[in-house]
């Protein structure tokens, strides 16, 4: 089995969640706030103790050191954090050269001070910061929450393209039905303690 596989994962209110995300595909998760979407992503990234099994291309999460797992299974939280003064310090040295135009930044952005970035700009840069790690899996927690509708669509377009091109298995937490319709190969909604398939292949 290639891609990301969740078997009987339990965390918080969620019980025995099973789910498969093949490489290059986007599975959207939706549900009311507090239903445990973010915590499910945190379980997949192994940031919280959880039950059940998570594996990537047949390798069990618990069989690799945690930081190596998170190097391949990268989560982008809803509010990204920046701890150095300059944007560029958060990126590997090689990341500046291939900066994608679709993000809507001039190439000097790496020299900018983090404090002058808006929350939407931070969000876009956080996605790029995750992508330069060349992950196998992306866990996106409302990646377009701080963006206006124009940049939301262009970000979605760019992100979906990167996901397909790099064959990244993606779990994407989203609210907006229109966005889910645009990006998802499959869509699950959280109903109480379980996931319910809304559309897509099983």
């Amino acid at each position, binding site marked *: 089995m290639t891609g990301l596989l969740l078997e009987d994962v339990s965390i918080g209110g969620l019980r025995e969640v099973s789910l498969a995300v093949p490489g290059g595909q986007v599975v959207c998760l939706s549900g009311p706030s507090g239903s445990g979407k973010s915590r499910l992503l945190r379980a997949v*990234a192994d*940031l919280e103790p959880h039950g059940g099994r998570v594996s990537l291309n047949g390798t069990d999460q618990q069989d690799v050191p*945690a930081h190596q797992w998170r190097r391949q299974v990268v989560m982008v939280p809803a509010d990204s954090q920046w701890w150095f003064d300059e944007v560029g310090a958060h990126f590997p040295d090689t990341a500046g050269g291939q900066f994608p135009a679709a993000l809507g930044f001039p190439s000097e952005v790496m020299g900018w001070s983090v404090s002058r970035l808006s929350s939407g700009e931070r969000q876009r840069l956080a996605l790029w*910061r995750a992508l330069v790690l060349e992950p196998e899996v992306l866990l996106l927690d409302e990646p377009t929450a701080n963006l206006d509708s124009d940049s939301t669509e262009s970000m979605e377009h760019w992100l979906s393209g990167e996901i397909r091109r790099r064959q990244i298995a993606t779990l994407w937490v989203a609210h907006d039905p229109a966005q889910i319709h645009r990006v998802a190969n499959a869509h699950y909604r959280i109903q109480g303690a379980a996931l319910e398939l809304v559309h897509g292949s099983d």
Partner: protein
Amino acid sequence: MEVIDLAWWKLGLAALLVLALAATGYRSRLGISRSLLIATVRTVIQLALIGLVLEALFASSAFYWIALLALVMLLVAGREVVARQGRRLKGWWAFGIGTGAMFVSSFTVTVLALTVVIGPEPWYTPQYAIPLLGMMLGNTLTGVSLALDRLNDAVWRQRAVIENRLMLGQTWQQALEDIRRDAMRSGMMPSINAMAAAGIVSLPGMMTGQILAGSPPAVAVKYQILVMLIITVGTGFGAVMAVSWGGRRLFDERERLRLERLLKP
């Protein structure tokens, strides 16, 4: 030169000054009078008692009595490390890590200074061992508690940053790097400042005491230099151990940040 003994009633004169300060604090509502008075009473009682203990100890010089006193000093220091941290690890961890770090660093350095540098016969002669260990523990206590307090508080405040760094595949050591540096700095600062100011801004207490007791200043200065060096070394290694053990405890075997292991202040 004989030392002038102090009569107890003369100490009472100094105590009157403390009362005057407490009264001033009370009238201007500074909120310090209560703790000032309690601390004054504590220092008088504690020092009077240790005076008696030391008199007895110096008379007997048996190793096990000295070891027992050292153990009591260590445990009290460990309790104090716990009390001085705002957020601290739950259970026995706060006490265990603080006491362990102080034990390894101050006992090792004190024994080393006694056997290799000073060399009294026997090496545990209480006139040397107890005051030296007391100064070591007192300063290591400050360093370890400052470092642990800073570590726990910073981890609590910056939990989102730490987790975001973990999400990007950093190890727990990398995610904690800046915080550990800060914690080490706050633990070491008092000793570094004391060394920098020694002799110019301040005449350190031990040297002053020795000179008052009639030692030639040249000897007193050498002892003071020795004490400052070993205090700094003891504090530094104590803080290094406390920060690395404390930091390790904040993460589990899967390198997850486990903030529920911290007690709310």
